[in-house]
């Protein structure tokens, strides 16, 4: 089993540990529901060191990423700017989703999912064919501090980060000493993602905890991202799905002359399915992946579902045939029965507020 630099801190804090893509990671530290609320109402932190930062270096870095990513790195003009993008295969299927930071000309940093990291490196390496250098930064640890109080508490725990990070707009990052601070995340709340040398991670984690930032596990991370309407790779999307079919059309730039892997396939596709949200209308159980969804426009399926601690109802992301619209009623097959659900447009929750 693989371990992040924070494994001892998790064990000491009494984390329930689970295997996540070969990594032994905290699922929760007692209550994932309380951890969820801590992020919506105060501040929580996640060890995301299992994800991989890959530095893309060289004079050809920008041109290479412009070809490798479905979103346009040409939009990254200011150093520190971040961009969400899918990485596609030639058929338009999603190999992974990632955030890429523009650090300076000739240096970009992509952060990719843990389960796909090895596949991504191999793919990018083959695609680059020497046009840019790829440097996996396994020696970096990553901590996401999220919640309405995340930034204030980060500054009180780590005052040295304040000057560089105080003026950061959302989706921007800056280097502060040996720590890269970015105003990004995966929860629908404000906050920072911190990348630092592995050797500093435990001290940073402890100082954040002392400043009232609650350690949160993968359980809360999943319910928070689902409420925020964010896809999880391997669940809401994979190589069999294009960005046009899973709510990520906004992240694909098809209009310009830029050529990127998968573009021709996307341009030729007329999507027959789309991604929408569901809210279970009755107390009948919990929406979960692979449940069938039936209604006037045909059958679809839940791609990820959970009990939403904020809505106090079960919610889901679902892949549905075209034709369904927010507000419509639909039926979900739940343990052999059918239960009524309402179609909504994600996100369900942003910045602590219920939006559906």
């Amino acid at each position, binding site marked *: 089993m693989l371990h992040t630099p924070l494994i001892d801190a998790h064990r000491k804090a009494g984390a329930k540990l689970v295997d996540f893509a070969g990594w032994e990671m905290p*699922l*929760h530290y007692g*209550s*994932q*529901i309380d951890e969820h609320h801590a992020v919506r109402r105060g501040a929580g932190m996640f060890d995301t060191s299992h994800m991989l930062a890959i530095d893309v270096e060289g004079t050809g870095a920008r041109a290479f990423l412009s070809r490798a990513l479905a979103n346009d790195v040409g939009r990254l003009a200011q150093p520190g700017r971040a961009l969400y993008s899918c990485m596609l295969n030639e058929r338009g299927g999603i190999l992974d989703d990632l955030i890429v930071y523009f650090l300076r000309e000739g240096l970009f940093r992509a952060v990719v999912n843990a389960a796909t990291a090895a596949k991504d490196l191999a793919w990018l390496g083959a695609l680059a064919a020497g046009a840019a250098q790829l440097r996996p930064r396994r020696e970096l640890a990553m901590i996401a501090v999220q919640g309405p109080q995340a930034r204030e508490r980060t500054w009180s725990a780590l005052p040295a980060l304040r000057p560089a990070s105080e003026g950061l707009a959302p989706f921007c990052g800056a280097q502060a000493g040996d720590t890269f601070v970015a105003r990004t995340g995966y929860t629908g709340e404000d906050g920072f993602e911190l990348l630092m040398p592995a050797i500093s991670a435990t001290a940073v984690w402890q100082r954040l905890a002392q400043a009232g930032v609650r350690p949160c596990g993968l*359980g809360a991370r999943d*319910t928070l991202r689902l409420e925020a309407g964010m896809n999880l790779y391997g669940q809401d999307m994979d190589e069999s799905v294009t960005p046009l079919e899973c709510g990520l059309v906004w992240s694909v730039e098809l209009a310009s002359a830029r050529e990127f892997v998968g573009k021709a396939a996307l341009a030729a596709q007329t999507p027959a399915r789309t991604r929408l949200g569901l809210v279970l209308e009755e*107390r009948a*159980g*919990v929406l*979960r992946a692979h449940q069938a969804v039936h209604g006037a426009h045909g059958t679809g399926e839940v791609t990820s579902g*959970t*009990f939403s601690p904020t809505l106090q109802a*079960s919610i889901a992301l679902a892949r549905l045939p075209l034709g369904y619209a927010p507000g419509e009623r639909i039926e979900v097959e739940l*343990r052999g029965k059918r239960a009524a659900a309402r179609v909504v447009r994600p996100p369900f929750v942003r910045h602590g507020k219920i939006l559906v």
Partner: protein
Amino acid sequence: MNVPENLKYTASHEWVRAETDGTVSIGITDHAQDALGELVYVELPEVGRKLGGDEACAVVESVKAASDVYAPLAGEVVATNKALAEAPGEINKHPYGAWLFRLKPSDPATLAGLLDAAAYRKSFK
């Protein structure tokens, strides 16, 4: 894991308490609630329903999974703990206080055939 001596158990992680009126109360064990994680939904049988032994008759769902609850012995449902529908988390907090339903056993002697605390502890080690 807490396994009280005064209760009977099943290999499918239900606990059974003999009440003074001849009925039995049934819930899920500390081990079961810990393995499931935080519970968010409970479905209980109808009062009056006649259950066979080992019949699936209730559902508990946690943040990560749904799990059937089985009747540890045959009998008729005489009461259900409806308060749990609004507060499934009580099962996590008090697994041996949060009973799900009560049965009037068809044959009270079958109670003796269930696992005692020591045998149940061994069943999951």
